[in-house]
């Protein structure tokens, strides 16, 4: 049953990185509860545009919860209060008529605000470039059973590989640390034989790049795993720590 609700939005408006931002109150009347959060913003933006006002800038792409592009802090929670969902998969049926919704961008020194709710998360790309890959020589695909992978290890690697790099972990972390992201990216390779040859170099390079980008330090608050839309576990952070210590104290990589 389609239902319509009236909302009041308190949206963070910021012209660019340098200017000081502020909350703007925008009314969002007659919102269908079948809309996603981003569709609601689309409707609001259409009205703002027609009224000759600046639409709200927000990140989005696939709107299927798999690309990691969207994200904002909704009522104090990255991607909203619903567990295990990205902002595009948060539907308006989770809100009530008359609600006031506060919408802020992800905040961290390493994530600069571009405009309104859009943030520059290229710091994550830099970390991936530092070692978030495996080197494979081109050629014919090798036999599927040449590298045995236990099922449970494959599952754990897949759990880590679910990370879409949205940055909610950084946004949720009281220290703006990127450890859950880096741990997922290190774990997905560390658990599989294809990732082992470069494991030591990868762990050291990615951690150093993470530090260079100005993220905070992990203090095991576990807010990240509670907010992660892919519900990546902090056991990955313990694995990253192990990989980093193995690489630092046990390998020849400097």
């Amino acid at each position, binding site marked *: 049953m389609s239902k319509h609700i009236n909302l009041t939005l308190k949206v963070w408006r910021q012209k660019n990185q340098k200017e000081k931002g502020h909350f703007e109150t925008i009314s969002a009347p007659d919102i269908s509860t079948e809309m996603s959060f981003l569709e609601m913003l689309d409707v609001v933006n259409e009205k703002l545009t027609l009224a000759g006002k600046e639409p709200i800038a927000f990140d989005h792409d696939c709107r299927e919860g798999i690309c990691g592009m969207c994200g904002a802090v909704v009522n104090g929670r990255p991607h909203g209060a619903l567990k295990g969902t990205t902002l595009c998969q948060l539907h308006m049926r989770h809100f009530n008529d008359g609600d006031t919704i506060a919408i802020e961008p992800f905040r961290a020194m390493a994530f600069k605000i571009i405009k309104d709710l859009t943030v520059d998360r290229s710091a994550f790309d830099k970390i991936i470039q530092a070692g978030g890959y495996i080197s494979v020589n081109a050629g014919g695909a090798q036999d599927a059973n040449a590298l045995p992978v236990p099922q449970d290890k494959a599952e754990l690697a897949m759990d880590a590989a679910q990370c879409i790099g949205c940055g909610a972990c950084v946004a949720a972390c009281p220290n703006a640390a990127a450890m859950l992201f880096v741990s997922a990216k290190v774990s997905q390779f560390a658990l599989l034989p294809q990732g082992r040859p470069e494991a030591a170099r990868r762990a050291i390079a990615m*951690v150093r790049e*993470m530090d260079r980008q100005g993220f905070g330090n992990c*203090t095991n*608050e576990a807010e990240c*795993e*509670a907010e992660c839309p892919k519900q990546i576990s902090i056991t990955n*952070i*313990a*694995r990253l720590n192990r990989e980093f210590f193995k690489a*630092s104290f046990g390998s020849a990589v400097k």
Partner: protein
Amino acid sequence: MNWLANTLTSSIGKKLLMALTGICFCTFLSVHLAGNLTLLSGSTMFNSYAAHLHSLGVLLKVAEWGMLLLAAIHILTGLTLFYQNWRARPQSYELKKRAGGRTLGSATMPYTGILLLAFVIMHLLNFHFVDKSQTTIYAIVAAAFAKPIYVVLYVAAMIVAAIHVSHGFWSAFQTIGANHPKYMPLIKIISLAFALAVGFGFGILPIYISMGA
């Protein structure tokens, strides 16, 4: 040795220093608590414990200087982490809610840590850097806790210590990478039990002494 400096000054390296020194302090707390609980058996028992401890002679001096070094590492690294983490989010949220990960202990680590540093200084001034030639250690303790202000301060400090340890203990294991599906639930239970043991174990002593005096 450049690699060692690079390792220990990295974010994970600093956490390793916090974890290892923290575990050392947990071990120290256990020994200290075991020793202090002799207070419950009266002055003779406590004075004899102190005499035995001091008969260790040079070993005790080594332990003291070792503790001072560990404390320096723990405090300096902790303050560095506190500063860096504060700097990592220049503009804080207007509205931020917890998702259920944070605990009282984890949210207050730097603050409880600083309070504990102040407490340790006071504690050493009360019982360590005092003239013990004309008196017994039990007499010094009894005299101190005859004053209600010290009873309140010490009990409050032990509550702070319990809160600090409740996060610090399990967090140290997570940091050194010892998160295991079989053992982590147990480590979390031990963490809470240890925090309660520290809080109650040390906390009842000033009250007990003040009531006996």
